[in-house]
């Protein structure tokens, strides 16, 4: 059995860990509120953007000559996967959930004999993926310096993707991120952004628009922006999810530390009592033997 001194030290160390996790939980809670707000404020933009693109693509008469970003290259050989994770750890299953989702997608693609390229956003994803898929990672982007997700960063990622698309480096692009549902639930998402996948909602609104300049030109201007917008949306959702996930993870950790302190305290008291009893017995039996 551990000595009294050792137990005392353990209790002290668990208590200080508890203090840290408690502080992290509070910080995460404050950040979560902000991240959630900005995720909600960012929604109108991406929704409107989606709407306009939907209207535009309905209006396009000549589907054959539609911009490649909309219709794809017509091939399905090289997949680019953008895996968006956080830059910091200690946030529960947040990163592993994205990675798990991404990995199952990767193995599906590789089994079909297609080529795979990966861009990681955020250092945690890179750390976890480089062991198995190190040769597939073509770029790692990290925004450690920026405090909050901002559009400028998203635009940078978007531009990188479009450059690679125009250079013909891939046919299909999918982004992986966590969608924020609530504090305890974040759903890992795989969203295809090139070519644009809008088959699910074909509400053929007979709204006729006037376009200035013509549809093709607007579309070819709009689509690159849409990619940045989608990435920005993913970044906002991700940062809200990250804070939510961290908050619940730290909440659990604080609770576990509390339980541990209770258990250790009981053990400490028992062994203290045992030591006293032992000393008493020694004294009594010593006195009796006289």
């Amino acid at each position: 059995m551990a000595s009294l001194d050792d137990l005392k030290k353990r209790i002290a160390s668990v208590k200080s860990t508890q203090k840290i996790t408690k502080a992290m939980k509070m910080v995460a809670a404050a950040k979560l509120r902000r991240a959630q707000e900005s995720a909600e404020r960012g929604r109108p933009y991406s929704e409107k953007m989606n709407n306009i693109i939907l209207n535009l693509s309905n209006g396009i008469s000549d589907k054959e000559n539609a911009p490649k970003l909309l219709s794809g290259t017509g091939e399905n050989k090289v997949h680019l996967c953008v895996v968006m994770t956080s830059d910091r750890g200690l946030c529960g299953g947040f990163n592993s959930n994205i990675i798990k989702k991404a990995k199952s997608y990767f193995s599906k693609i590789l089994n079909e004999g297609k080529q795979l390229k990966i861009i990681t956003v955020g250092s945690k994803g890179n750390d976890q993926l480089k062991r198995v898929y190190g040769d597939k990672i073509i770029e790692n982007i990290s925004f450690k310096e920026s405090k909050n997700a901002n559009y400028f960063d998203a635009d940078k990622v978007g531009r990188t993707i479009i450059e690679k698309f125009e250079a013909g480096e891939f046919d299909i692009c999918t982004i992986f991120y966590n969608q924020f549902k609530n504090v305890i639930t974040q759903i890992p998402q795989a969203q295809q952004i090139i070519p644009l996948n809008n088959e699910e909602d074909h509400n053929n609104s007979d709204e006729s628009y006037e376009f200035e300049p013509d549809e093709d030109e607007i579309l070819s201007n709009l689509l690159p922006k849409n990619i940045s917008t989608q990435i920005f949306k993913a970044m906002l959702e991700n940062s809200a999810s990250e804070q939510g996930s961290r908050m619940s993870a730290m909440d659990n950790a604080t609770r576990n530390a509390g339980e541990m302190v209770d258990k250790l305290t009981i053990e400490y008291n028992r062994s203290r009592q045992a030591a006293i009893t032992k000393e008493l017995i020694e004294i009594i039996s010593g006195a009796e033997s006289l």
Partner: protein
Amino acid sequence: MSEEFKIEIVNPEKSFLVKEDVLEVVVPAFEGEMGILKDHISIISFLKPGIIKVFSKSGDENYYVEDGIIEFKNNNLSILTSTIFAVADLDKSKQGDLLKKAEAEASKSEISDQAKYLADQKVEVLRSIN
């Protein structure tokens, strides 16, 4: 009959401006400035760097934008833009920063004609605000 319609300007971070009593909006569309009044035909267009002028009952306002898309439908004007500043809030130092950035962009040699044109536009507009 009222001559008002609704305008909504959103940027990626938030809803920038919502107004219900707008009489006229002049936007710097890609092929030239375009005035929009109530009951305009549904239109989608995109913007080049310039000034959005909003005339409303509660006062006129000017906004500097660098890019964007506009959609007008059922007397709802939506403007999506990534960079927007109210001209009234644009002080000298901020304007100088933007101008410097635009000038640097315009003086790059390896950019495409369209990017060059847009950068030149930015410089021109920013200078004219003074």
